[in-house]
């Protein structure tokens, strides 16, 4: 999976550079987030602007990251989600689990 990582305003921002997150590449996403957390980067924002499709395994990878970051007193939030992708979070009620921001500035302003 094509991912970019940047440190911005004290947060680790993970940019997903794929249009599709499914069972073929969600394992890579899960591993990448877990590696960040193991390195002590526990305040993570996943930027999903390019993602136009996510399946249950993609949601599971993000949920895994959320649970692991929380267990280390950190936080994993989501930003720049397309409407159809957001609707999957709403259907599974995962929008009540994650903090979801319109963009990175809104995420930074909220101080998570």
């Amino acid at each position, binding site marked *: 999976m094509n991912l970019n990582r940047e440190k911005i305003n004290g947060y680790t921002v993970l940019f997903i550079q794929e249009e599709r997150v499914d*069972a073929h590449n969600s394992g890579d996403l899960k591993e990448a987030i877990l590696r960040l957390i193991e390195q002590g980067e526990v305040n993570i924002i996943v930027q999903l602007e390019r993602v136009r499709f996510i399946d249950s*395994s993609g949601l599971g990878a993000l949920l895994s990251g959320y649970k692991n970051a929380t267990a280390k007193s950190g936080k994993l939030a989501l930003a720049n989600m397309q409407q159809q992708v957001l609707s999957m979070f709403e259907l599974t009620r995962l929008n009540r689990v994650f903090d979801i921001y319109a963009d990175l500035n809104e995420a930074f302003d909220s101080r998570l």
Partner: protein
Amino acid sequence: MCDSVIQVEVIIPTQTKYLDLIGSIGEHIAKKLDEFSGDREALAYHLNLVLTEATVNAIKHGNYGNQEDTVRITIAIQENALNIKVYDHGKGFDLESVLLPDLDHPKEDGMGLFFIRSLMDSVTYTRQGDCNVLEIIKYLS
């Protein structure tokens, strides 16, 4: 099946790299359904998702571990219904015993069948000869 307006049959190896192809076919079909009066963009996403989840299910649970096995997928539009069948050669499972996920205590897996059941109108999983068939129906009007 002869009355189908659109009928597609795809056979893929049991590898997840083909999920994009299968999902894309569903998305394209949704956008060609002139008679569908609902939200076509949403239907396109839902068909992409349902085909993806059903195929993953067949790859992981049906033909588990056998790289040389195949999954067969058929998509047909008959009158006002869209019919999807996904065939696997695994041991199968009892669809009725698969419980709805506890959305108040979400887990990392187990959402695939929930999506299929939530977004489509009918789902059955039956043994037919040497195959299991996951049959999914979506009514278009």
